[in-house]
């Protein structure tokens, strides 16, 4: 039997980049919470993620979701050394802004604002796009993230030199690379498996 996607009726969908807490609704049927087995729960990594339709959809391939979730958490949350969390979130926001993922950009722009206390600059990136002037250090991080996000990527020596000149060491540059690269994974899932819904 042919399966069918869901075409959810979304009234008033978000049509701009925003830091508001918008939602997301899937186009394919997530697993029901009651149907989750031990294998699925292991794939979700955190039991609380069983509440999310997005993760209950991705958990249809639990081993991939588990590895992806752990990759995500280490790239963004392991900030004892290397690039500050705020700037990893900036890289995520820049990639999402450039690919056009309104939902991803909303979540990670909020994190960038929270950790940097520079909400106005973050909003400028959302409003004006990836050419916005955010000061040289942030401009260098955004430019590098955008060059990696371009398809094919156009990231080169000049981006490394600019990040270096802005004060980033090699570990911090590697953190920018991973933050931007990871959102080329996340954006494609969020954009292709569902759509954003308005803030409550």
């Amino acid at each position, binding site marked *: 039997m*042919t*399966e*069918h*996607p*869901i*075409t959810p009726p979304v009234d008033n*969908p*978000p*049509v*701009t980049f925003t830091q508001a807490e918008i939602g997301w609704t899937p*186009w*394919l*049927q997530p697993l029901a919470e009651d149907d989750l087995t031990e294998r699925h729960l292991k794939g979700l990594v955190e039991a609380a993620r069983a509440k999310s339709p997005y993760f209950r*959809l*991705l958990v*249809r*391939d639990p*081993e*991939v*979701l*588990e*590895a*992806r979730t*752990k*990759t995500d958490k*280490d*790239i963004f949350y*392991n900030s004892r050394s*290397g690039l500050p969390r705020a700037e990893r979130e900036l890289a995520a926001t820049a990639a999402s802004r*450039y*690919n*056009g*993922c309104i939902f991803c950009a909303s979540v990670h722009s909020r994190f960038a604002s929270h950790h940097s206390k520079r909400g106005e600059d973050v909003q400028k990136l959302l409003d004006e*796009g990836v050419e916005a002037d955010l000061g040289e250090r942030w401009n260098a991080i955004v430019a590098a993230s955008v060059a*990696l*996000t*371009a*398809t*094919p*990527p156009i*990231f*080169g*020596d000049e981006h*490394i*030199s600019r990040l270096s000149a802005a004060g980033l060491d*090699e*570990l911090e540059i*590697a953190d920018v*690379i*991973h933050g*931007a*690269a990871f959102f*080329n*994974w*996340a954006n*494609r*899932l969020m*954009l*292709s*498996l569902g759509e954003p819904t308005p803030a409550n």
Partner: protein
Amino acid sequence: MTIASPDIIDLLAGITAGSALDRIRTQRPETREQAQKSYLALFQPTDFGDVSAAERHAVASFVAGLHRQPDIFEFYISPFEESGSDRWLIEVIKAEIGAGRAKGPYGQYPDGPLSGENETGPLYQLSPASREALGPKLSAALEHAHLLVFHPRDASPRALQALLDVGWTTNGVVTLSQLVSFVAFQIRVIAGLAVLSTAAKRVAA
């Protein structure tokens, strides 16, 4: 006894043991391990489920080719080179990579203030000859991969319907979407670290 698979990102970015980039990756052991586990879960799963090994490698090599990454393309296409019966697939995929060349990200935004940022680009379809050779299921997967690679913001329930119509299951679509998106990530880590590695060697020289 199992033979450990080499770390694919190190392999394809040219990162050798003891190099500056090896030391940097050593400071992120969890990222390194989980990126590798993601690769293994997609390409050497215990259960291939609804997506065959050949479909996985065909789609991954197509994604690498669209990103114009010859080494990564070669890596994913290599199982076909070693196979007697599937070698013909290589030329078909190469031809479709050539036909599918584009620059992204492009695509449409929902109607509103962002419409001014809409960028048009090709809507890729396989040639009739390639479609005939690859069959409807793999053909639909390559068309969906092209959408995800270059213009993911054009995605829609209709694009998913096109996959389901030719026999993809919901589970299969999830795995396929993860695979294309993971390879898009992996390519960028490899490309980024390769540039960083060259820069680090120059400084050390």
